[in-house]
């Protein structure tokens, strides 16, 4: 059907987005990769480097070539292990809570009750809140150890209020982020539940299928695909959580990989080190993405 003319036109129409995305992907990545092999500090432009170690290799802009030193330094920095651990904790917990909690909430919201529209709107709202707002409200109004809402409730019950950000910074970040992403999982799983064949439900009811086996044999298989999608999308976003940590100032102990790279680069001005960190983050994300893309690819085919 496609004539020669439409094929050419098609290519012309597709090329702008391919070109800009390609540039967006390749140029910064190539530069990051290059910088990661340089001793390059914004506050310390080159001079010190050649004075300290005369005869060292320089690039065309007179910057010292550092070889793998940035990587060595970054990968042996205790902060790196902490950041990796924090990244994994954050992604793992929020994913777990989203999938399990999201499924339960979706099953609940799929029942018949009064005011479905309103409850649905309330449930989705957290996902629409700007991350900086959610971080500030949680930190100051809910989790503040002296005057926060939780502290007031704890005191009312005669318990010792918890100082979340001092003693459990990671838990606090996980709670804040989960509050935003469980609604997302719920929304997607609920949408999928509502597309479940009504006839199947009726038939199961007539046969007197117990609710648990109905869930296990009919509902759960139907939810596998949206669950995969939830896991994929949330992993992408959760690996890159930044604002919550930046705003609450918990980066010292609850900082994840993106925050550490930000710290290296824009705070310590260590461009080489930050670039090495960026490359490490890219490699890790690609490992995750490889498995996830295969999953979604398979799911999209069927």
């Amino acid at each position, binding site marked *: 059907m496609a004539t020669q003319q439409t*094929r050419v036109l*098609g*290519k012309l*129409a*597709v090329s702008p*987005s391919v070109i*800009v*995305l390609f540039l*967006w992907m390749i*140029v*910064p*990545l190539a*530069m*990051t990769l290059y*910088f990661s092999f340089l001793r390059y500090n914004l506050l310390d432009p080159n001079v010190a480097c050649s004075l300290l170690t005369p005869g060292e290799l320089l690039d065309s802009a007179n910057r010292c070539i550092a070889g793998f030193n940035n990587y060595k330094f970054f990968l042996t920095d205790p902060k790196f292990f902490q950041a990796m651990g924090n990244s994994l904790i954050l992604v793992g917990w929020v994913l777990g809570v989203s999938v399990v909690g999201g499924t339960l*909430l979706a099953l609940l*919201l799929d*029942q*018949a*009750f*009064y*005011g479905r529209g309103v*409850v*649905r*709107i*309330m*449930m989705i*709202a*957290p996902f629409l*809140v*700007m991350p*900086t*707002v959610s971080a*500030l*409200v949680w*930190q*100051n*109004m809910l989790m503040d150890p002296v*005057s926060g809402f939780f502290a*007031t409730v704890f005191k009312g019950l005669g318990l010792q209020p918890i100082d979340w950000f001092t003693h459990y910074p990671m838990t606090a970040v996980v709670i804040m982020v989960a509050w935003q992403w*469980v609604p*997302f999982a719920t929304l997607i799983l609920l*949408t999928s539940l509502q597309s479940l064949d009504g006839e199947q439900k009726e038939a199961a009811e007539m046969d007197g299928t117990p609710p648990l086996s109905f869930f296990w044999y009919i509902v759960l298989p139907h939810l596998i695909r*949206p669950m995969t999608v939830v896991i994929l*999308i949330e992993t992408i976003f959760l*690996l*890159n959580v930044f*604002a919550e940590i930046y*705003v609450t100032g918990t980066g010292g102990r609850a900082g994840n*990989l*993106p925050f550490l790279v*930000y710290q290296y680069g*824009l705070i310590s001005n260590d461009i080489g080190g930050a670039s090495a960190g*960026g*490359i490490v983050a*890219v490699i890790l*994300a690609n490992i995750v*993405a490889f498995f*996830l893309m295969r999953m979604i690819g398979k*799911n999209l085919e069927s």
Partner: protein
Amino acid sequence: MARRETVQRKLVFTFLAWSVGLIVFFPILWTILTSFKSEGDAINIAGFFSTGWTTEAYSVVQERSNYMQFAWNSVILAFGSTFLALLIAIPSAWAMAFAPGKRTKDLLMWMLSTKMMPPVGALIPIYLIFRDLGLLDTRGGIIIVLMLLNLPIIIWMLYTYFKEIPGEILEASRMDGASLGKELLYVLTPMALPGIASTLLLNIILAWNEAFWTLALTTKDAAPLTQFIASYSSPEGLFWAKLSAASTMAIAPILVLGWFAQKQLVRGLTFGAVK
């Protein structure tokens, strides 16, 4: 008998669902309520409902931190980046949906994969390029970044919408001798408009809330509401009424848009895999 059971069941679920819904919504509800209190009343949680209501906090916030400039930046960045992305994405998605080649599927997957690239991998070069070109803290620079960030989602979303337009209609119009331009203008556009509108809506939400690049690349002139709110962290965070008023103004427009766009949200964010 069976009927009474269903009513009972419905009441039980009404109670359960509303409880859960209110718990989840509580932080937002409380923020909105607190924004209408005086500073002294706001902090008094126990006597929360027994005190007066005022819009004082709103006027204080607007006077002190020229909220309007931040809000205006948010509007310009969100709409600017979305329109620019649509301009590039519509022809691409149209071509991929109606004249797919052998590689279209691969191309789509590749576009999806660009979304997986962690922003920190590009942060340093983009920061340096922006610094050298004088693009740091400019609206134009941020618009370009936000456009590139959301372009894959926009293309995917439009693609899934365009796919649903029956190709026979296009063929019929072609048989009737419609030129490509006419086909685009009179046949495709009216059928594609709802999909384009949904895509627009979703991307305004995403761009409005984007809080990595906007925090890293803006300081004052081009700073949107994300940065405005971030500047409220301690010690101003202790002034609950003002914090709440600022927060409410930052999230209200998006809450309203989001409620309209519930369905599109699912489709757009799942790359069309869940409808």
